């Protein structure tokens, strides 16, 4: 027994990257416990190939529940289906991504099935003596790391921060099974219905899932100048972020805000341009792998957490940097 479960996420029938990151997490835990790794997919008309790819990335069993009302996440329905599966198969651990989906469904579910839930974990391990899950998460604006256990309730549940772990390489020799779970009409719940969907500026990949985020702050001075940030993000293959001051001035929309009252992200590279690095801003980037700053003030707080800093006028530096990246791209 002692199965490790993950909740895979899909959008429009395509599995999201974070589903594979969760499998890598789950695989490590399952191997430590010498147990099985199972993943749950809730959706509509998902291709067999997609389901199989979960096995190639570490799953032993894929539980797939299909119904038109599972196409989009509806918290009440997702929680009903998961409560049923958990009751039926009694997993040891259930992990979901710390996304808008995971952070809605899992707390709703935790209450229904009376167990604990640890939020937004960046590290998971198995405690040797007990086999319990040790769940580590940043809290209080990233100022502390708390390790949390759920000693007496099952499953032990956690949401896991996207990008905090690498997916495993595809291994097409892996085998496993896909279990199709029959839909039970009683799971339907019409209290909340999805009507439509619009993409933010035609930009479908999110800040939380980006490997590279280039952020601009008040140092950009004017809305027009914010284009420099967009161009730099583009040429590095990254996404655009912003400080609160930049968002409040309307240079970027709120979904781009990074920090305590915006998003918490863990990209491989965070490039902060004209951002001072106030504690509230840093709260959103504490777990970034590398931080680079471009700032005219050598005493700016952002330098305290940066790995590399160019100290100078961003308006002189960025055009040169863009030119350099442009030629490098051409040589590729």
């Amino acid at each position, binding site marked *: 027994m002692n199965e490790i479960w993950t909740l895979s996420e899909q959008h429009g029938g395509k599995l999201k990257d974070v589903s594979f990151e969760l499998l890598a997490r789950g695989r490590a835990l399952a191997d430590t416990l010498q147990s099985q790794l199972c993943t749950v997919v809730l959706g509509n008309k998902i291709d067999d190939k997609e389901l199989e790819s979960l096995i190639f990335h570490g799953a032993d069993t894929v539980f797939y529940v299909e119904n038109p009302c599972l196409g989009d996440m509806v918290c009440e329905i997702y929680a009903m289906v998961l409560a049923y599966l958990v009751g039926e198969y009694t997993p040891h651990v259930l992990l979901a991504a710390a996304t808008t989906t995971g952070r*809605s469904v899992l707390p709703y579910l*935790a209450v229904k099935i009376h167990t604990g839930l640890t939020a937004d974990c960046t590290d998971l391990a198995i405690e040797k003596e007990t086999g319990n899950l040790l769940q580590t998460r940043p809290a*209080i604006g990233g100022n502390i790391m708390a*390790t949390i256990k759920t000693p007496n309730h099952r499953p032990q549940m956690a949401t896991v921060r996207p990008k905090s772990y690498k997916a495993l390489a595809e291994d097409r020799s892996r085998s496993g099974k896909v279990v199709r779970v029959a839909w039970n009409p009683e799971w339907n719940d019409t*209290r909340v219905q999805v009507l439509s969907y619009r993409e933010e500026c035609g930009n479908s990949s999110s800040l939380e899932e980006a490997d590279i985020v280039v952020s601009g702050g008040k140092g950009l001075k004017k809305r027009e100048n914010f284009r420099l940030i967009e161009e730099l993000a583009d040429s590095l293959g990254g996404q655009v972020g912003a400080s609160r001051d930049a968002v409040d001035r309307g240079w970027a929309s709120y979904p781009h805000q990074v920090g*305590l009252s915006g998003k918490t992200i863990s990209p491989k590279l965070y490039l902060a341009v004209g951002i001072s690095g106030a504690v509230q801003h840093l709260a959103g980037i504490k777990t970034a*792998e590398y931080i680079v700053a471009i700032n005219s003030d050598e005493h700016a707080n952002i*330098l305290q957490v940066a790995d590399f800093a160019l100290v*100078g006028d961003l308006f002189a530096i960025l055009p040169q940097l863009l030119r350099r990246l442009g030629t490098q791209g051409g040589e590729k």
Partner: protein
Amino acid sequence: MYIVVPIKQVPETSNVQMDKETGTMIRSASEAIVNPLDLYALETALQIKERTGGRITVITMGPLGAAKVLKEAIAMGCDDAIHLSDRAFGGSDTWATSYTLASAIRKLGKVDLVIAGERATDGDTGQVGPGLASWLDMGLVTYTSHIEELTDTYLIAERLLEEGYQKVKATLPVVLTVVKEIAIPRLPTLKGKKRAMHMTIPLLGAKDLGLENADLGLLGSPTRVVKIESPKISRACTVVKATDDSSIQEGIDKLMLFLASKELLGKGVAK
């Protein structure tokens, strides 16, 4: 429309002290304020009340000093407040917190809307709002960025997701959690402040709610904080001054080398 807004008191600074034994916060160590993200929930409720009429009750679970944040909400224009405080509530995780709050909300009679903040800036789980919906057996709309339509029986709202905005229709009663984009919080008014000053806020404990200690606080919490650490930020920053043409070129050379050595180049460059 009867609206309940749960608000949390959080420490003013982000440097708070922790009790290493229990893994809980030492609250007295810093000044308490309304959780900044709850101001958006309050503003949303106030705007709805202005449009459709109705009543707003704010509720908090927290130590005696938390009455201060309730008074602030009253000063902003909320009608009444309830303060849940009891030793037995101490050390609650989000399961126990949402249980306790939901038990009190249930006693208020017919509630149309519960509007919570997206997350608290200290515990930072964002789990209490969804937990409330689950306990109250209400529908849940998280990450609400806009309310497009509101009637006596349903609402149409937009949710801010990773990839964009999703429009949903929800039957009342419903629990909403709101993001910053939804409104710009107002300041307390002088009149409101006066009202708040003279208001006595009912204080309720476990007995008043008819709750058993075994379900409350640390005792009733499935999770346990077992260790607290300060993360070590050991970034050795390479600082390069780039103040004129040649130093800018040199600086960019070094930056490109840095990025290349970390395998951060050439990802999307081909696009």
